[in-house]
């Protein structure tokens, strides 16, 4: 039984990464209608950004939590301005192909310069060590990841669902022409939203840097699972993707305990089941 609690907690930790990443995807899809396949590459860039900040500029983990998402977010906004904005109104497939291509290029460039084994990034001194919870040894850093990502997820949800800014944003996706008539600069808002989604991915990257090696392919390995999370939660649903992210982390954690061989596939089995029963995802609305 003790082991089970431990696995539940570990699942929750992994779930926080899924939640942060799928949240960014959901924001981008919900507001821009773009299936952002470059998300994994941008997550990886966040981790690399933290690595560069530390090793080149001597800037540590805490400032990196703010700086890396901004830097990568700006990179994302440049992508949106120069490439993605031309795809408005076209079929989803174009956005998917373009972002997938961008992901391959970014990963290829990083792999060319940094190889595949990855670079070390240490846990900040303040968060070293762990506490014994009785049923498991919880590294403090992992506890921090769960709490921090939960706060970020809920703040993002609040921003989009409960504030005037969020209301404008949602209105702009429904009817851009009308919103523009109110004097709101819709294209700029779209760019900033893409920047926000990308920033969330980069933030997840910084959070994961001390746990995983900083590797060019770290995002590619994760992104497929995250897409499954988004599909299960319902494309574009903010709260849906947060809840599904955490829930799937837990389910995956339990699989690792009961039948580890299937831990890489359980998410996809669930995806198939959900799609069979409810094609719009658990919380999605019919198109």
């Amino acid at each position, binding site marked *: 039984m*003790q082991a089970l609690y*431990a696995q539940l907690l*570990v699942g929750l930790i992994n779930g926080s990464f899924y939640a942060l990443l799928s949240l960014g995807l959901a924001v981008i899809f919900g507001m821009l209608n773009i299936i952002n396949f470059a998300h994994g590459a941008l997550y990886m860039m966040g981790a690399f950004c933290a690595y560069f900040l530390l090793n080149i500029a001597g800037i540590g983990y805490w400032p990196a939590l703010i700086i890396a998402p901004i830097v990568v977010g700006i990179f994302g906004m440049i992508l949106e301005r120069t490439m993605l904005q031309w795809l408005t109104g076209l079929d989803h497939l174009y956005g998917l192909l373009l972002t997938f291509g961008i992901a391959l290029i970014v990963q290829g460039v990083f792999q060319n310069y940094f190889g*595949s*084994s990855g670079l*070390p990034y240490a846990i900040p001194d303040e968060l070293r060590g*762990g506490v014994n919870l009785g049923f498991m040894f919880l590294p403090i850093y992992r506890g921090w990841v769960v709490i921090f990502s939960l706060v970020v997820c809920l703040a993002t949800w609040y921003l989009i669902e409960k504030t005037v800014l969020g209301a404008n944003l949602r209105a702009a996706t429904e009817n851009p022409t009308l919103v523009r008539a109110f004097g709101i600069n819709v294209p700029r808002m779209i760019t900033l939203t893409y920047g926000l989604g990308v920033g969330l991915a980069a933030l997840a990257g910084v959070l994961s840097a001390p746990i995983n*090696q900083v590797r060019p392919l770290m995002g590619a390995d994760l992104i497929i699972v995250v897409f499954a999370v988004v599909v299960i939660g319902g494309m574009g649903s903010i709260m849906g993707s947060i809840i599904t992210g955490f829930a799937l982390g837990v389910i995956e954690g339990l699989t690792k*305990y009961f039948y580890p*061989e299937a831990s890489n596939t359980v998410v996809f089995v669930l995806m198939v089941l959900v799609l069979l029963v409810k094609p719009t995802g658990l919380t999605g609305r019919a198109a």
Partner: protein
Amino acid sequence: MKHRISALFLGAALTVSAGGALAQDKNIKVGVLTDNSGLYSDLGGAGSTLAAQMAIEDSGLAAKGWKIDLISADHQNKPDIGATIARQWIDVEKVDIFMDVLNSGVALAVNNLVKEKNAIMINTGAATSDLTNAQCSPNTIHWVYDTYMLANSTGQALVKAGGDTWYFLTADYAFGHALERDTTAVVVKSGGKVIGTVKHPLNSSDFSSFLLQAQASKAKIVGMANAGGDTTNTIKQASEFGIVAGGQKLAGLLLFITDVHSLGLKVAQGLSFTETFYWDLNDGTRAFSKRFSERTKNKAQPSMVQAGVYSGLVHYFKTLDAMGGNPHDGAKVVAKMKEAPTDDALFGKGSIRADGRKIHPAYLFEVKKPSESRGPWDYYKLIGTTPADQAFRPLSESACPLVKK
């Protein structure tokens, strides 16, 4: 009578010229089949192709009229893709010899094909000891290391040092299974006990669930029967979960210098494991590694897999040179290669056994503390050597049909 003599001369002349034509075929095509983009690409990948290129340049065969082509491809760690490339290489590209072929799953698939098509594989990257045991082939030489040797060296040393209960974290494919099986045999034989095992999918990023299970088992040794990125992530996360601090010891059954480089000495210090090549072993290895490292992008030192590609090709070229030409007959060339002793600056003197196993000493290393290291890539302390004739599976235990008993 006169007619008969001239006919004889004519016949003899034809035979000589036909034989001469065969012997004069001085074309060789080398194919490096490896992981160019995935988790093993640092320990094989482009570095293996570079090592092959260096072997070709150093062989001096070009000056003797030989023409050697080199091609390389990415098998993406997928046996089906590896087999498809191999088939095309043999049928269309006329590749004579496959080098590297890391990943045991891919290696076993290519092994069958190479035998069927009578080509050659010098495997320097895959670990499974099956390549020279039940699956041995007259066309395959296993050059650098294998799971039996790793288990024998690292496993035995750890049990002797008091690590008599084991829990395995095993990569769920041919390599992990073989490494776990061979290590279990050594542990049990040395008086230890395996109390549990968990199989994780290849290329996992999170090992916390598996590590918790290993921690709960209370085994003295947590044996990592995985490789590359899987091992580095396991080690990193094990330190996070306080595995070593809690009194358990991590056993890296297969670690490469590129893994240690990636982890950094702070995390990797104190790990002990077995390799058959290290750049800083002697003058010969240092000279080669210096030339190698100058030609890589990150000034990386060669891994034992990459060093094996060089060493294997050196012996192959020597053999063909002595034969005077390339018969394009894999089994025949491999038989010749087994007859001659091997000797190069990287692995020293050695030989190739009937089962295709290349033998040389195995070195037990320990990773230095950051304070002991003189700079980048100065990572290992040599703590033990197993002589060549004891390092690998004895022929008396072999299930290989090529071994006469």
